[in-house]
């Protein structure tokens, strides 16, 4: 009974721990593998907090800045991008009605704050103890500092020491791990040591077929594999007897983690924060593990399970051992929470000096002395502090006064106050001004600057829209040449504008997955791609198949593709083998010179040449998609064919049989036996077949067993596979629902043109691990053409049209739906499935293609103007050549700007924005509230596409404001790791976010970091209802100020701003506020 209680108790503790870890993991964002890069908010888990508070938390946990450095905002102010009135508006809530008089000149609190912002007066600067750099104002500064002498008071050192010790005690395990504490106090590098270990193990364990030699024992799980290997390390991080200690760890990671936390003495109420801190030490790797742990169907996760519990069990073990070692060595105390707290209380002087030393704040001689005493205790520490108090503190205080004087002088200059007047001002007034400045530290400037920056842009955009509503052009009723639907992606906006300008084409915006939630397998690929936003799930699968299996080209294509694959594999194996590279370099090395020179010197030509050779060797195939559900018979046939192929492979691999000796009857017999053996009714195989193959009954039985075990050929797996095959395609009802939803959401329900193009988007770049970041976010970071093809095929189906007509969408018989894909790097639009277009539409298609080409050239020309390496205007032809070259240049770190500079999400009819130059900064989603009486479509848009847009916006925002922490740094140092992400250099955390070159133009941001502005052309009460209904998503967005919401009242044509308090405020037409 006792053991039962004990095991229940253990299980309860494990469950509790898992719960704590789940909560602790909230502070880190999930990290998707880079091949399906998903833009996301790095502080997504903190969206339940107001934006400013979340930013503060991000700073505390990860050390990331949530706003641009002030000098960049000041540069915006200088350039006119931020208007002074917007700055005043943003500052107004902080200004107090106070003033001091300087001579005859009153100085208001507001003026001081404003000058702090514009002149950077509150930038914390360490004033040197002995200023030696010649300064022409030194005399004035010294004079002012002397005047401040009487009014500036400083707390006693002892008080300060006590306050620091108390503050750190309160922060311990909340904002400061014990490892950090050791580093900050003893000058150790425990956090770095642990990070190095964790990077090493995570890199090896999480590898996805990138490493040639993989980590052994990965099937045991992250913790098990680590335990099995780390035990053999000679001396892990210098931990004494590390092997022995690791071997004695419990088998369950939960137990190991609990044991380590008990050893560190982490109080129960602090465990969640403590574990959060441990996770944020490596947010990249931890974020990826968090993602993987939640993706149970992910093949790598199934094969080699990883989770945050396991990650933390390893990490905290290192922390426990290293903290213990450091505390014993330096302080002769236990490496436990309560021992550390007791040390800070009992020896505050020593603690203070050690901390100052580790932070580099002690004069060099004192630093030496602290180093000398670092392993001792006792009176010597008090002696140093006494000397420090006598020698250094007065100099420190003088330096602080000089700093204050310097700031006062800068303030006076900015306010045009003469220096003598300032010097004559009463010291108390001077002190008051200094206090105002100190009460407005630079940390508080970010929100003010951000609001001012946003206000400027919003005023301009809303002004454009207001002008358009006031002078609305009558909507055209004539049938357009074509209608085309583009992804809401900001890159579609210029293209749409240019296409509309070259002919009578109508365009629409819709999330690029086109309401087709599909899992897609391209021809010849072994894995599916998930073609929908990551916040959704798919029910249907679609395969790309050849249009005709009877065609000779199919077998030729398959055979040649196989050869190419074999060639690649061979080269790869030769490169990665232990011995062969030595020979290979000599014999084949020169061959690699061709691509190196080709790609470097003539990238476009090289790309054309290789594409031509590829086409020549592997002929392209006309393909279609499996849109309709398979019939039962077809499913069975498909399954049978696949199983036959497996058996043939097994016969070849296991018994070395050549194709000529493998008969269909033998294969079928084996299949039957493998599938029915479980039921006990063995299928007999004709003796002649067995004999012809040269097999014995024993061999046959063994092979059947192998087929079941190794090749997974069992009745159960067959059933599973069959069930999966039945998910292929859509039923008629599903197709009707998909097309109906899509057309209604985009507002395309009448006046159909002869051609309707669903235009997805993808990109082309070389040597770019972030390639998928340029693809369609709504399609899970993949190219969107499968979705466009699916929707076009469905919409062209006569049966679907008949059903749609019954629900009020009458598609004319001469309307044909086309699928296309825009390459956002080259702006070229490629059309798909033209074989299905009726001959009557050839002229229409030709005209559309011409106009698309023209629009492409205009778009390229416009985009070229934004590249920093193009100084002057370019012609359309040059622009086309230039963008093409960028897409093939393997040294190009910025093939395109991607979604950079996105700012807003506009949910409205195209009439509102048609002809407006929105500079490729706005997500445009077509929506007509009149088509949505139930509010259902708006609900979908706000909770789907808007969320995606907000993720994209926040990814760019944080990558721009602090690229080192929230972004991924410079591409120059990127190294692909494990085929799942990138590291900076050979050894780093998995880098989050976007590369520096994606958001920055040199040292200044190309992407202006602002929060998303959502503008909805719909009645306010409808929006209110949705906000009330979706409190978790929309309330967090709008009430916590992650997203700004503006409604355009369709009937009144008036703009209203949604306040965090839930009120609507009319936006003033003049001030824009």
């Amino acid at each position: 009974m006792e053991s039962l209680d004990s095991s229940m108790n253990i299980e309860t503790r494990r469950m509790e721990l898992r719960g704590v870890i789940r909560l602790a993991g909230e502070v880190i964002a999930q990290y998707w593998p880079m091949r399906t890069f998903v833009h996301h908010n790095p502080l997504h888990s903190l969206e339940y907090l107001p934006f400013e508070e979340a930013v503060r938390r991000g700073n505390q946990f990860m050390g990331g800045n949530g706003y641009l450095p002030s000098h960049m905002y000041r540069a915006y102010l200088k350039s006119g991008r931020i208007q002074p009135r917007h700055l005043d508006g943003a500052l107004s809530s902080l200004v107090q009605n106070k003033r001091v008089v300087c001579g005859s000149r009153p100085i208001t609190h507001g003026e001081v704050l404003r000058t702090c912002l514009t002149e950077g007066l509150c930038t914390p600067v360490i004033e040197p103890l002995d200023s030696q750099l010649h300064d022409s104002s030194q005399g004035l500064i010294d004079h002012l500092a002397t005047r401040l002498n009487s009014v500036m008071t400083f707390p006693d050192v002892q008080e300060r020491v006590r306050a620091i010790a108390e503050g750190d005690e309160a922060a311990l395990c909340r904002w400061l791990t014990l490892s950090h504490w050791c580093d900050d106090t003893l000058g150790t590098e425990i956090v770095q040591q642990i990070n190095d270990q964790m990077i090493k193990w995570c890199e090896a364990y999480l590898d996805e077929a990138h490493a040639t030699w993989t980590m052994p024992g990965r099937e045991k799980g992250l913790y098990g594999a680590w335990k099995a290997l780390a035990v053999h390390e000679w001396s892990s991080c210098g931990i004494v007897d590390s092997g022995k200690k690791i071997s004695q760890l419990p088998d369950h990671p939960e137990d190991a983690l609990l044991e380590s936390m008990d050893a560190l003495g982490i109080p129960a109420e602090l465990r969640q924060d403590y574990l959060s801190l441990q996770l944020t030490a490596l947010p990249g790797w931890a974020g990826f593990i968090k993602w993987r742990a939640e993706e149970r169907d992910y093949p790598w996760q199934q094969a080699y399970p990883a989770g945050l519990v396991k990650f933390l069990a390893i990490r905290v073990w290192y922390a426990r051992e290293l903290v213990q070692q450091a505390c014993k060595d330096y302080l002769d105390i236990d490496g436990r929470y309560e021992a550390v707290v007791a040390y800070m209380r009992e020896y505050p002087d020593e603690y203070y000096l050690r901390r100052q030393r580790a932070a580099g704040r002690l004069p060099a001689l004192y630093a030496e002395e602290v180093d000398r005493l670092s392993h001792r205790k006792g009176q010597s520490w008090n002696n140093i502090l006494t000397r420090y108090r006598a020698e250094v503190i007065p100099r420190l205080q003088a330096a602080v006064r000089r700093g204050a004087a310097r700031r006062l002088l800068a303030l006076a200059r900015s306010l045009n106050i003469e220096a003598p007047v300032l010097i004559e001002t009463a010291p108390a007034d001077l002190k008051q001004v200094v206090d105002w400045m100190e009460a407005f530290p630079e940390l508080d400037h970010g929100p003010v600057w951000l609001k001012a920056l946003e206000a400027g842009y919003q005023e301009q955009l809303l002004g454009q829209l207001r002008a358009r509503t006031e002078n609305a052009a009558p909507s055209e009723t004539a049938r357009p040449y074509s209608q085309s639907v583009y992804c809401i992606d900001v890159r579609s906006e210029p293209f749409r504008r240019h296409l509309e300008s070259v002919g009578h084409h109508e365009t629409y915006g819709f999330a690029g997955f086109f309401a087709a939630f599909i899992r897609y397998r391209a021809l010849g690929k072994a894995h599916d791609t998930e073609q929908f936003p990551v916040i959704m799930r798919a029910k249907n699968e679609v395969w790309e198949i050849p249009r005709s299996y009877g065609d000779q080209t199919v077998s030729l294509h398959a055979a040649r593709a196989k050869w190419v694959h074999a060639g690649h594999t061979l080269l790869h194996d030769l490169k990665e083998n232990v011995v062969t590279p030595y020979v290979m370099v000599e014999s084949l090395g020169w061959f690699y010179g061709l691509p190196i020179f080709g790609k470097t010197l003539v990238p476009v030509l090289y790309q054309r040449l290789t594409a031509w050779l590829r086409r020549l060797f592997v002929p392209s195939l006309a393909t279609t998609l499996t849109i309709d559900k398979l019939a039962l018979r077809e499913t069975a046939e498909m399954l049978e064919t696949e199983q036959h192929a497996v058996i043939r492979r097994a016969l070849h691999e296991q018994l070395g049989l050549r194709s000529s000796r493998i008969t269909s009857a033998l294969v079928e017999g084996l299949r039957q036996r493998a599938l029915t053996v479980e039921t006990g009714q063995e299928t007999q195989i004709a003796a002649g077949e067995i004999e012809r193959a040269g097999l014995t009954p024993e061999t046959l039985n063994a092979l059947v067993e192998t087929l079941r075990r190794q090749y997974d050929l069992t009745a159960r797996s067959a059933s599973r596979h069959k069930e999966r095959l039945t998910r292929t395609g859509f039923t008629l009802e599903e197709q009707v629902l998909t097309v109906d939803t899509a057309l209604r959401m985009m507002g395309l329900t009448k006046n159909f043109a002869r051609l309707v193009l669903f235009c997805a988007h993808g990109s082309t770049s070389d040597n770019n691990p972030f390639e998928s970041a340029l693809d369609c976010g709504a399609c899970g970071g993949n190219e969107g053409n499968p979705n466009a093809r699916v929707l076009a095929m469905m919409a062209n189906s006569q049966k679907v049209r008949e059903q749609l007509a019954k629900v009020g969408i009458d598609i004319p018989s001469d309307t044909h739906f086309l699928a296309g894909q825009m390459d956002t790097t080259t702006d070229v639009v490629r059309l798909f499935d033209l074989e299905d277009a009726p001959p009557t539409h050839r002229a229409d298609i030709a005209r559309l293609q011409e106009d698309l080409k023209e629009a492409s050239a205009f778009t390229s020309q416009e985009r070229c103007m934004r590249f920093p390496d193009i100084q002057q205007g370019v012609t359309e032809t040059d622009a086309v050549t230039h963008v093409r070259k960028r897409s093939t240049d393997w040294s190009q770190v910025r093939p395109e700007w991607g979604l950079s500079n996105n700012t807003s999400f506009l949910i409205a009819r195209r009439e509102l924005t048609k002809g407006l130059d929105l500079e490729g900064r706005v997500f445009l989603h077509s929506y007509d509230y009149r088509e949505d009486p139930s509010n259902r479509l708006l609900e979908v848009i706000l909770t789907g596409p808007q969320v995606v847009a907000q993720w994209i916006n926040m990814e760019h925002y944080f990558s721009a404001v602090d690229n080192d922490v929230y972004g991924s740094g410079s591409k120059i140092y990127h190294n692909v790791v494990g085929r799942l992400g990138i590291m900076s250099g050979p050894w780093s955390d998995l880098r989050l976010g976007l590369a520096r070159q994606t958001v920055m133009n040199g040292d200044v941001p190309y992407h202006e970091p602002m929060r998303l502005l959502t503008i909805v052309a719909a009645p306010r009460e409808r929006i209110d209802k949705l906000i009330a209904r979706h409190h978790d998503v929309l309330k967090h967005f709008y009430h916590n100020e992650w997203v700004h919401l503006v409604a355009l009242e369709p009937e009144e044509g008036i703009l209203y701003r949604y306040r965090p308090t839930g009120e609507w405020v009319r936006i003033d037409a003049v001030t824009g506020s």
Partner: protein
Amino acid sequence: MTDAVIISLLLPAVPIIGAMLGFLVWSQPEKLKIWSVVVTVLSLLSVIGMSGRLTGATVGPLLLYLLPLTAGASLLGAPAHQQHRLSWVLTLLFLGLGLGILTSQQIVGQIAVMVLLGLITFFLYWYHNPLWPRSWWGICVYGLGSLSSGLATIASPPVSAMASLLVCAVLLPLLPLHQGYVSALTRLPGSLPAFIVLLLPAIGLHSLITVIPTVPDVATSTITIVALIGALYGSIKALAQSRVRLLLGYGSLSFFSIFWWFAAVSRTITPQALVFLAALAVVTSGLLMSWQVVRTRYGDDVDPQAIIGLVKKMPQFTVLFSLLALAAMGLPPFGVFTGFIGMLLTTALTSFVALLVMMIAWLAASWYILDMVQRLLFGRERSDLRYEDLRRSELASLLVILLIVIALGIAPSSLFGITQPPSNAEAVKEAVSWNR
């Protein structure tokens, strides 16, 4: 009086009188600094003008040129701040003494060495801080050096020869008498360390040229072993330092020990060895000046660990500092490399251990110097540090040093000929013949 005597009086007189006159503008730091620089220029001109008529300078004209050049550069790079005034006057005074020692007759020179070491001892005591008890070692070592110099003046051989050797080991640091050198680099004020890092080894070399041929075999064997140990010791100590001046002190000790090893093995000083020593001293001086640039901005007491991320905001400093660091690591085309390779090529290297030790010292130097450069220049910029790139005078001073080190690296070493005093050496040899 002969020309040589007049010259040996005139050359030191220029800076010494300059130092005296400097007190006239003592209350105006900027003027005093300008005056000091002018005096070093005058001194350099006087050296250039009279170098053809010098007969007493055994080390040839190279060091005579380098002394005022380095003194001028160190003064130029110093901030015009009142707390540096004494260091400027002392620089001029020491320059005068140095020129006097290098150009005068033996006895006068030895008296001058005694005065110089006595002054350094005094100022080490003056700037002694209880938090830095090791400076007592320095005071003792220089005191010993001063006494030894006096002894060498009054005693007869072989005592005078051994006393001279001891003085050489104090001036041109050799284990275990290196503490004086390290203390002087660490404790002396302002721009002075950047000058004496050349001055003291130069005077040491000057004496060594005379002494080394006369040293008994047993002594040279001992020096060989001590020098190798010193090279290792200096490297290890440099690796363990966090303070820049200590790191440079121990690092240069390691390289000076290599020089000692070479001198002991070959029992002569070749022009290549002279280039090595001069380049090493000048480049160390340059690095000390670079560190002075940092101290000027962040205070004399700044902890190097607190200074990071200079690369973006101080590009000129970064370039010059990096080049000097490369020179100090012994990379071509700088003088340290040329001198070292020249030394190796002119020596019959018979000891594998010696080669190994030199390799270790060399590799260690690339470790600790690069580490220092990396720590100061790279890392995340600190928002609370006020960054300001080199001012014109600082830029000029570092450029001068860099050009000197390049010139030493690329100029033919035959230009830097050394005058061996055979008669004197023979006399001393005869005097110590009892030892054989």
